[in-house]
């Protein structure tokens, strides 16, 4: 079941088209990566989902029903450009933001206490935001985003501004939220974290949705019969054993061993390759190279340009 679907969303601004016929469907309880170069239209799509702006055409369905004004309480949003009232105290501000999302004051206070204890930041409660570092403020923003336990969470570049320790903590929290049943939309340029966290992705480029699906399927789809072989022995010796069906495209080192990346041309398979090289060198490892999301991203975006 899809928690959120958009049908043929179109949004034009004065001088350019921000979104052109974008349809996505986000499965329930998944982590959904929203990828794309700068200016592709991701933020506009996120704002439409948040009802911050309205699309010119198309519709957004939440739980199968058109998005209603009250539905914003079911969504938690951490924008890319985020801030807090500098002169307000941390606790007061967190309470205010929680109540704006429809929580009662009592309930907000209870949950905030819990989270402040969990992150060990109780001492910040009476501090003004301007006294906090950027990273500290980010933590507060994260807490206020998830406090009302929304069905759908939208994080726009959540890791920017976090040190590795806090970024890792955030990652754990996101996985934890998924375990508890939330669905997470995750917009980022950091492909490493996409591979690590996302189940599904969609790639938006030039206001169009150009690639969508389960991340494992996409990566399989983009693999191009390249194998990486690490071995003990001479690279030349290995090379001499290959026939024209196989081509060494890169010579590398893996953990101090010689290694090559071999492209297999059609009508053969990896077992044949293995049997050819087996007598010549001592094989340490043999694996198929599955393209990284980074490679796929660059490849698809560049293809699309031409």
């Amino acid at each position, binding site marked *: 079941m899809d928690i959120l679907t958009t049908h043929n969303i179109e949004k034009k601004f*004065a001088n350019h088209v921000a979104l052109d016929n974008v349809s996505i469907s986000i499965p329930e309880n998944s982590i959904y990566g929203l990828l794309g170069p700068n200016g592709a239209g991701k933020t506009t799509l996120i704002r439409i989902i*948040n009802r*911050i702006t309205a699309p010119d055409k198309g519709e957004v369905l939440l739980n199968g029903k058109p998005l209603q004004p009250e539905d914003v309480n079911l969504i938690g*949003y951490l*924008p890319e450009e*985020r801030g807090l*009232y500098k002169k307000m105290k941390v606790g007061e501000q967190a309470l205010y933001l929680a109540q704006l*999302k*429809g929580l009662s004051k009592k309930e907000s206070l209870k949950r905030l206490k819990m989270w402040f204890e969990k992150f060990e930041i109780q001492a910040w409660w009476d501090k003004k935001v301007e006294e906090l570092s950027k990273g500290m403020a980010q933590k507060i923003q994260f807490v206020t985003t998830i406090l009302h336990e929304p069905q759908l969470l939208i994080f726009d570049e959540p890791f920017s501004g976090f040190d590795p320790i806090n970024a890792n903590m955030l990652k754990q929290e996101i996985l934890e939220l998924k375990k508890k049943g939330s669905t997470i939309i995750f917009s980022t340029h950091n492909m490493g974290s996409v591979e690590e966290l996302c189940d599904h992705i969609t790639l938006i480029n030039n206001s169009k949705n150009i690639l969508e699906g389960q991340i494992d399927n996409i990566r399989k789809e983009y693999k191009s019969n390249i194998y990486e072989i690490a071995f003990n022995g001479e690279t030349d010796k290995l090379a001499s054993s290959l026939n024209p069906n196989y081509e060494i495209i890169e010579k590398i080192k893996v953990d101090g061993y010689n290694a090559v990346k071999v492209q297999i041309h059609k009508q053969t398979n990896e077992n044949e390759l293995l049997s050819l090289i087996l007598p010549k060198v001592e094989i340490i490892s043999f694996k198929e190279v599955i393209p990284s999301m980074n490679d796929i991203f660059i490849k698809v975006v560049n293809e699309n340009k031409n």
Partner: protein
Amino acid sequence: MNKIKLIISREYLTRVKKKSFLVMTLLGPILFAAMMIVPAWLASREDTEVRNIAVVDSSGIFINRIEDTEYIKFEYLQNKSIDEVRKEFPESEYYAVLQILPSITYEPSAVHLFSNTQPSFSIKSHIANSMEKELRNQKLRANGIDENVLKSIKSDVSIRTIQWTDDGEEKESSTEVNMAIGYASGFLIYFFIFLFGAQVMRGVIEEKTNRIVEIIISSARPFQLMMGKIVGIALVGLTQFLLWIVLTFIILTGVKTAFFPELGTQNAQDIVKQEVVVQDLFGQENIPQVETIQPQNFDKFSSILNAAKSIDYGVLFGSFIFFFLGGYLLYGSLFAAIGAAVDNETDTQQFMLPITIPLILGIVVMMNVVQNPDSPIAFWFSIIPFTSPIVMMVRIPFGVPYWELALSMGLLVITFIGSVWLAGKIYRTGILMYGKKTSYKELWKWLRYKS
């Protein structure tokens, strides 16, 4: 609806809790009270030092003719030249030396007052008045006119203005009191619109530059955020206004009972006597005339009191609140739109001009309206919504026909609804726009975006 309440209370509480609000709230009434008390206090501290003034009268006309007062005594030094007096002056106890030349009868400037300090204005005017009177009397006598005849034909006119109200009653009014109240209310409205309108603008810019705005409008609609801010700040303004009134009243009564206990029990006669003393100080009237002046003075004073009483303070206060809120909503929403259209306060100038001009025009017209509250200019500027909050407030103490008041109020309401609607459209688009310098053309485009 709950969300807008939350926003209003945040906007209100954060501002009311600020130190600057407390300072303004306390300082305002102290300044008001000081403005009323200090002159009274100064007047009550009369100069009690007795000053002797040596008179060297070479004309001989004024010997023993310049009146002594309680604190100014004159000593006539005959047979001494001004040079001798000058030599002795440092050792003498004279405050000043008055030299009168023989040419005084035809040359007004033939009088010199020498002193080692600057003689006070009251001394100077007392001498001048006494001498003028003496000269006049002598000339009258020389022409054979009796002084008493002259006194008996001296006339004084003071006009009491009385309005016949529509319900057939008589109402005593005073143009001066109406002018004062009109000025004060007009200025206060102008001041409040600017002060709190600018606060709205700064609040919007703050949210925009803080980048908290996107978090909030993912929870509440932009219109709720804008209206919440405008209403919250309006409540701050009303709170401040009411506190000012209450505190000014408390301070005034406190100071009055502490320092001027006699004022509380003063009856009309006392007031009249005080009036006379004040006049005496300036030397405009002399003592023998006090008896004849008294009833007339009493009349003047009581008519001011009556006029001040005759103003319908309920209507005045009610319309002040209405025109403050109406004018503030009209301008405050425009200020909010400007705040949303720019990235920082320095960029606001180009948009501020069209807002500032009608407000300043209102103040300029106000000067004219105070003189002539029923002129066509007064009428039109008190009907046109952009200036009506200021100009109508000036007219109200003079009495305004109900239909004009209703028309002005109605138009103001329609206009502020329109301006709030317009501002909402600009605001909605503007708060999410960064880094681009906004032009009027751009604003026009934003107005036409679909919501």
